């Protein structure tokens, strides 16, 4: 799809000029290794250690969030691009909606503990 936004016809200002690079090979490799490490840590904790349940859940969530950030910076180029940062705005709105979904569901479904 990377071809698409330049071919998309018309009056784009970048039509003929080269796009700034989509990350270097080094950045991709660092991101890839970090992602693997962050995936292996929870696996090892689950299989190889006897951490209690709360600890496991907290570790998994923490690793997941760190990996999300890693991927945003190394693969999704959140820092790049000129003009208004629409991608960052969309991301913040998305995080807000996720918060509403999770917190709202917990609040709404907590009735279950009362009725059971």
């Amino acid at each position, binding site marked *: 799809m990377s071809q698409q936004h330049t071919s998309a016809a*018309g009056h784009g200002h970048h039509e003929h000029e080269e796009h700034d690079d989509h990350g270097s090979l080094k950045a991709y490799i660092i991101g890839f290794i970090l992602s693997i490490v962050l995936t292996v840590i929870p696996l090892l904790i689950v299989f190889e250690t006897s951490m209690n349940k709360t600890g496991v859940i907290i570790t998994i969530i923490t690793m997941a969030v760190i990996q999300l950030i890693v991927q945003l910076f190394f693969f999704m180029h959140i820092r790049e691009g000129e003009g208004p940062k629409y991608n960052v705005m969309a991301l913040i709105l998305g995080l807000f909606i996720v918060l509403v979904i999770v917190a709202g569901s917990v609040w709404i*479904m907590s*009735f279950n503990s*009362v009725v059971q």
Partner: protein
Amino acid sequence: MYASIKSFASSFFVTGDPLIYGADVSIGLTSIAILFVLFYFKKWGWLWREWLTTVDHKKIGMMYLIASLLMLFRGGVDALLMRAQLAMPNVHFLQAEHYNEVFTTHGTIMILFMAMPMMFGLFNMVVPLQIGARDVAYPYLNAVSFWLFFFGAMLFNISFVIGGSPDAGWLSYPPLSEMSGSPGVGQNFYIWGIQISGIGSLATGINFIVTILKMRAPGMKLMKMPMFTWSVFSSSIIIIFAFPILTVTLALLFIDRFLGGHLFTMDGGGNPMMYVNLIWMWGHPEVYIVVLPAFGIFSEIVATFSRKRIFGYKSMVFALMSISILSFFTWVHHFFTMGAGADVNVFFAIATMAIGIPTGAKVFNWLFTMFRGRIRLEQPMLWTLAFIPCFVVGGATGVMLAVAPADYQYHNSYFLIAHFHQVLIGGVVFGYLAGIYYWWPKLFGFKLNDRLGKWAFWLWNIGFYVCFMPQYALGFMGMTRRVYTYGWDMGWGPLNLVSTIGAFLMGIGFVFQVWQILYSVKYGERDTTGDPWDGRTLEWSIPSPPPMYNFAVVPHAGERDSFWEEKERRNFAPAPPVPVAQLESIHMPKNSGVPFVFSACWFVAGFGFVFGWLWMAILGMVGVGVTLLIRSFQYDTDYYVPVEEVRETEVAAGRAV
């Protein structure tokens, strides 16, 4: 051998119902007729080159429109079957099980396979033209979206004759939709039909957000965009945040059904109410997804046919954007009776009522736009005028339903049925029809016949009130939704008969519209000016139908209603032709057959998952992977339209000398 084929066929095909056998015959005959025409007139190459591989937003929009009208027909027949069944007490025209299937497919098709594609059709047909672009931001992805929708819809629709239709309601609540309640394949068709077309919807949302943010004509600042473009933008924002919730929810349901999970079962630690909670997080924003573009259409039409600027532009934009956020805070009002507690219900009741405020502001803005305007009662304006009172009543009954304690009385009664049909028909359907009448001449080059259109308009409108007003009363009389028949002693007979008559009036209205389209193809008033309604926005500045590249010279849009301002500056004299020397070659995307094949592979995979045939599912998914790989190695995806071709087209249209 014969016995095993026979036993396979009897479970594979739907058998035993004369209505279905009739449908089998008509589907067979129609397919043969289509194949015959394609072979006889040697149209296969034309079909492939001009339509199946196209990435032109105008053609994709037309295909969306045609598909959605076919789905409107199917969903409408479902509705008439239900109304026929309910016309009198103790009717056994449909059996209970068949009735369940009919109301399920009616709801699912009308929202997901009629309203959504009709909306995407209007997005595609109008937005690039309105913002002065030559295509959407991702034309290839646009074709992918359309074909995913198309094959998803086909997968859902074949359940009618193969395997059996879903019958657990349009949102498929568990535990009924779990294996324990629905052991057949119908629910699998539901899940996969929606999943496949849902990917397409999500991609369209992304596509139009980027198109609107990045492809606007020079000078068109965000606060100078036409209202319809604003409404598409706000609707797309809801799409990208709401559709993933649907995808995840249905995937979880599929885990339960296919892998024996217990996420939403009654036992094994599952909780069916969690599904209800999740699906409405998509389901409620979904109704705003479909209604906001309708608001945008009305805003365009009201301004054009009153010959005035839209009243309160900034408040309109603010209303759209605040609705798109507020729509994520109301979902519990669909299940107040779940008993989540007074605090939860109060919060969501107030949030629901709060949405009435921006919506009300919009209604006043439309009225003030008409105030002291020079109103012309053309067809688009007629539908707009019919929408306002209809939607106000529908909104008022919505606020009644939002009162949580009172909702315990209305919940799942015919009062609710009447309410949501009033906002969805009065708001969404009237809006899209108005939009189709309005932009039809732009896309097809001729107006739709006025006399037939007025017949359709009055039949739809009178039919609507005759059909749904009695249902409010029936709700108060205790009639609940989804009952397939009722006794004489209930006293519901007379009002139901009236309601059925209204439904058939709307059906006749639809027939008039089909007739109107066919008649106008041959005899409709041709639009030679490109500006048949004396329009205000950029799409009316180019010929009808627009050339493949839309704008020969990229327009400058420094003001709101910039085409109108330009017309005023030249005192409504015809626009001077462009000197040919100013024309340049135009950069355009190339057609591609990959989206069609890619989506067909999804269809194969979906069919395999529906029947649990893993070999077929794997085969389909391999096809999906291969087509993705093929595309990622295609570098030659664009070309330049030679300047000679641009010159010839423009000179032939009288736009250049």
